[in-house]
């Protein structure tokens, strides 16, 4: 087309003749862009989907687990609740809590089936669970711990440490059903029997009565149990194990953008000091894992 044609008055342009090549050019350009970077154009990309929906669905277990989450008179509060609300705020969405899961293994089902976006629920990271869901970096590393019946421990034969004394065929170690501690207990005390309880108080009752030697969970719960009932300290001994319990968020394998974003989020709030503020507010000293 000769260039002087551009200077002709608009009213005299042949509209139909121009429209067809313009449309064609548009379609061609789009097709070529899609060809080069197909992912950019996928409508199901996870982070935009959450932001479009305007809601982050956070899964927690049914039962309260202090100080991570508990139902107070004015709503949920706790370490994980503060964290979930902060995640949602920074994503620019609302938070919606899903409390269907009966225990921690149930949370994994919920995440794996996509019924929630992320589990922020004092969830321990383990290899077995990582087969089914994607984990972020740990935002907290507690110590594995035990409450040991002193009388039962004294009856056991001598060993180098109390921990090695508990790894014997006659020893019974209790923990909560559907928690990562079922695996942790079997891995740390392969010779001992592992007993499962639905409720911590049931396990505690058996421990006091000497029906089991020890009750295993994270250092936080073990320590809080003693502090709430100091009279138990005459019978029960708080014992830190030598292994860590990494607490992390779990996300469906398909939500890769979200995992990536959450990892950067955890790194950021660690740098900003917000994680430390939360630790000081809810966790307190003496329960985090310190490598030897």
């Amino acid at each position, binding site marked *: 087309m000769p260039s002087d044609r551009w200077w002709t008055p608009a009213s005299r342009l042949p509209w139909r003749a121009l429209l067809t090549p313009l449309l064609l050019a548009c379609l061609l350009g789009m097709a070529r862009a899609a060809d080069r970077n197909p992912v950019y154009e996928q409508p199901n990309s996870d982070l935009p989907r959450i932001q479009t929906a305007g809601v982050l669905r956070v899964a927690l277990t049914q039962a309260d687990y202090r100080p991570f989450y508990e139902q107070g008179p004015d709503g949920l509060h706790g370490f994980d609740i503060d964290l979930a609300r902060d995640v949602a705020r920074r994503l620019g969405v609302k938070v919606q809590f899903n409390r269907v899961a009966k225990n921690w293994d149930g949370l994994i089902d919920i995440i794996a089936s996509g019924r929630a976006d992320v589990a922020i629920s004092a969830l321990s990271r383990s290899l077995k669970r990582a087969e089914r869901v994607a984990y972020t970096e740990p935002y907290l590393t507690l110590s594995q711990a035990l409450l040991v019946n*002193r*009388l039962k421990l004294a009856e056991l034969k001598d060993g180098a440490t109390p921990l090695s004394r508990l790894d014997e065929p006659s020893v019974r170690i209790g923990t909560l059903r559907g928690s990562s501690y079922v695996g942790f207990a079997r891995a740390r005390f392969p010779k001992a029997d592992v007993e499962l309880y639905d409720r911590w108080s049931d396990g505690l009752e058996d421990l006091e009565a000497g029906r089991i030697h020890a009750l295993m969970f994270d250092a936080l719960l073990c320590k809080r149990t003693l502090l709430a009932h*100091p*009279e138990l*300290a*005459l019978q029960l001994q708080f014992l830190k194990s030598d292994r860590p319990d990494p607490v992390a968020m779990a996300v469906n394998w398909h939500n890769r953008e979200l995992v990536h974003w959450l990892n950067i989020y955890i790194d950021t709030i660690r740098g900003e000091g917000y994680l430390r503020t939360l630790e000081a507010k809810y966790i307190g000293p003496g329960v985090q894992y310190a490598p030897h």
Partner: protein
Amino acid sequence: MPRTDRLLRALKSPWLALASIVLGSYVGIAHPSLAKTIGPIGDVYLALLEMFILPIVVTALIHSVGRTLMEGIGGRYLRRVVLIFFVGMMAASLMALAVGSIFHPGAALGKGDRKVLGQAVIQYEQTGTANDIRQAEPGIVGFLHTMIPGNVFAAASNGNSLALVFFCIVTGAALGLMQNDKAKATLRIVEAGYDAFMTIISWIMYALPLGLFCLVAAKLADMGSDVLMAMGAFVSVFYLGALALILIYLMLTAWRTKRGMWPALRAVKEALIVAAGTSSRFAAIPAALRAVNVELRRDPVSSSLVIPLGMNINLQGSVFYFTLAALFAVQLYGRTLTPAEYLMLPIAGMFAAIAASDAPGIAAIGMISIILAPLGIPVGVTIILLSVIDPILDPVVSIADVHGNCTSAVLITGPQEPGG
């Protein structure tokens, strides 16, 4: 100058020492921060006193063992020493079993008491010191090993007095059996050393009221009164049993020295006050020697054998304490003992007391594991609870140790020969 004399005599008065203990207790309980400030003065005083105790033990033992053997009366004394020491410790242990079985101090804990004690245990175990204690668990072989060290000078500088006692007895026996002028002269020199150290101690005693005041104040400042209340039953039973022991000691002394109970008490009062104020039976050795040799007029050669030896192995107060504490732990955990286990308690208590005699501070309390471990009773809680209330038990244990030892000396030795 008579005025200075009066002042000096007043400084050595046991009543002044007693008053400073009472005043120190008041300051320790009512003004703990002040008590902690003056605590180091008490520590320095105790160090000064203890500096001369070891030389006194060495010279007294070598001299008395040597003289006894030289005069050919060794065998007779040896049998009596072994018999009286053993019977005395068994009797003290039986006293603990009696009061412990009658009053059940460990079973009497209410829920509130258990809460307070549990809190003390939690607090203690957080600091991690509890884990260090449990390592101090020597068996019978380990016990023999501490008694026979490879290097006696290392043992002496580590405060392993049991080893030193063993060394001195053997050395004294060798000198005594030599029966010649050289040995006699050596023993005279050792005796002169002993006299010199005793003189130094008598100078140090002028500062006793000040030292006791600071020591007692600092000691009581550390104690939690709520734990004391919760352990009230145990503490009461302990005091009751200790009082009964002291009454028996007074009766035996009175009967053996043919005097009244009151004069028998007056004779040992200085030794008992030093023991109570310093919580150290070793610090009371000079005063105990004076009590038996001068006040009660027993034969000085044999009593200066019995007292330093007894302060190491004739620990009736400690045996009483360990047996009662073990019984407390048994009751705390709701165990019932078989008759055989009951019979074992006094023997194990004796070993625990002797093993504890060399262990410093809290490790001494840890020796209760010698009794409890064979019974399968956890030691951690018992050690923690005992160490929390130690400041008010320790002085009484020391009093009973020193008084039991003075009484043993009175029973073993004969009266002083006229003019001797």
